[in-house]
């Protein structure tokens, strides 16, 4: 077992416009990407659980050419609103880092 953060070259979060947040999990080489993809340990349901959302609120993609897994969720507060804590959405990925990959 390895934590996702040990296998990925970059896990990041960012605004996808003012109303959505997007997560990119990027890998250095095809073997590692395929290992994570085939394991099924990173899925729409797992991302949903990490952010306490129903799975249908999560957009989820495997990006083979980019060697990346991507997920997008609605922002809990619109970018820049009084309740928003992260204007660029850049520090929202930590809950993905310790996903265990067989």
């Amino acid at each position: 077992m390895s934590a996702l953060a040990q296998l990925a070259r970059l896990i990041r979060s960012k605004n996808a416009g003012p109303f959505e947040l997007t997560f990119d999990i990027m890998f250095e080489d095809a073997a590692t990407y395929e290992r994570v993809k085939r394991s099924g340990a990173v899925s729409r349901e797992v991302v949903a659980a990490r952010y306490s959302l129903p799975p249908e609120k999560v957009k989820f993609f495997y990006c083979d050419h980019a060697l990346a897994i991507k997920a997008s969720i609605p922002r809990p507060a619109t970018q820049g609103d009084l309740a928003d804590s992260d204007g660029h959405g850049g520090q929202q990925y930590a809950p993905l880092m310790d996903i265990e990959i067989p």
Partner: protein
Amino acid sequence: MLSPTGVAGSGFQESSFERALEQRPHFIGCDAGSTDPGPEYLGSGRTAFPLDAIRRDLRLMLAGARRLKIPLVIGSAGTAGADVQLELVAQMVKEIAAAEQLRFRLALIHAEQDRAYLARRLRENRVKPLNPAPAFGADTIARSEHIVGMMGAEPVQRALEAGADVVIAGRASDTAIFAAIPLARGFPAGMAWHAAKILECGAAAVVNRKTPDCMFAWVRQDHFVVEAPDPALRCTPQSIAAHSLYENADPFRLVECSGTLDLTDSNYEAVSSRAVKVTGSRFVPAERYTVKLEGAEKAGYQSVLIGSVRDPFIIRQIDDWTARLTERIRARVNMVFGDRLKPADYVFSIRIYGKNGTMGPLEPVREMRAHELALLFEATAATQEIANTIAGITRHQALHLPIPEWSGLITAVAFPFNHLERGAVYRFNVNHVVEPDDPYEMFPMDLVEIDGAAFRALAA
């Protein structure tokens, strides 16, 4: 085509730019804005990058484009692309032309939306929500400081057809800036839009980005090739494919006014150690032409206060402590203002750093591990004076809020300084599209003939 940088004002290497000009681009394009810096730029009309930094980039781009006698297309002028920002950039262009003795025809394309026009389209049910979207009604239009439409490629093409050498556009789709010319010259839409998507961020799609810099693409009938002019920068199939992930919710389908760029079948191959060839990208025309709106309204005036706590008694009861404090502050505000300020007339909040200040409701960690907590108190109201008063009340109430563990007068918060005025604060209030009759009606154009310091308006 040449993209000097991802945002005008973020800079690029002059050596890369000169090398790119030697490759004889047919035009230079540059995005100059985004919603990413937040709603305050659309709300206030200020620019996110310093004016001197924007002027430096513009001067080099204008001089380079005039030297090669090729078009220069700038989109989303002045960060949000509202009229006040378009005017600011237009003024800058005129000053540069005067200083550098440049001659050209300038097109200014407005993207700020007329309130009566939007109200009419709303009544006609031709303003449709995207997902997720806030409610949008006649009152939203009235409350907004500025509402802009995000133009497609067509208004830019119209400006070039009218003989413009330099196009400064208000809010524009980042990709439309670059797709306009290849589309007008008959290149396949899939190639034009995908190459545009890579170029709009400058050299962001390279493997080893050091600083913002130039990117170059050759668009052909069945493919395009992308390469960074700086020989030290490398594009790889993976880095170019990964670029469509950045700041997009869906990496395979990118929606534009006139249709959707579909990257499902795109293929990426290395043509050298630094250049990548892309094939297979498709553009699916939309049944209905739509223009996305962006709007910002004032949320109020804000005062903030930064403090911290170190006492473990307070830290272990922080949720209860902040709830009691909020109650006291609200009671004290009521004593001071009475009926002049109702509870709904102001927003008071406390962020707790060390607990969930960064992630708020998304934070999965429940137990606190910190030996100190930072507190950010925010008071937002209709005037700065009221916000300041609430911040002043907050400081005093927070300092001396009692806890059961201690008897006697305590001083509970460390404040490095007193409250700060943030001035007006704004919120985005629209995530909708308009269905116009044609791609031009929302984007009127001015044409100006510029000759050094002299300029005269032409009939557009």
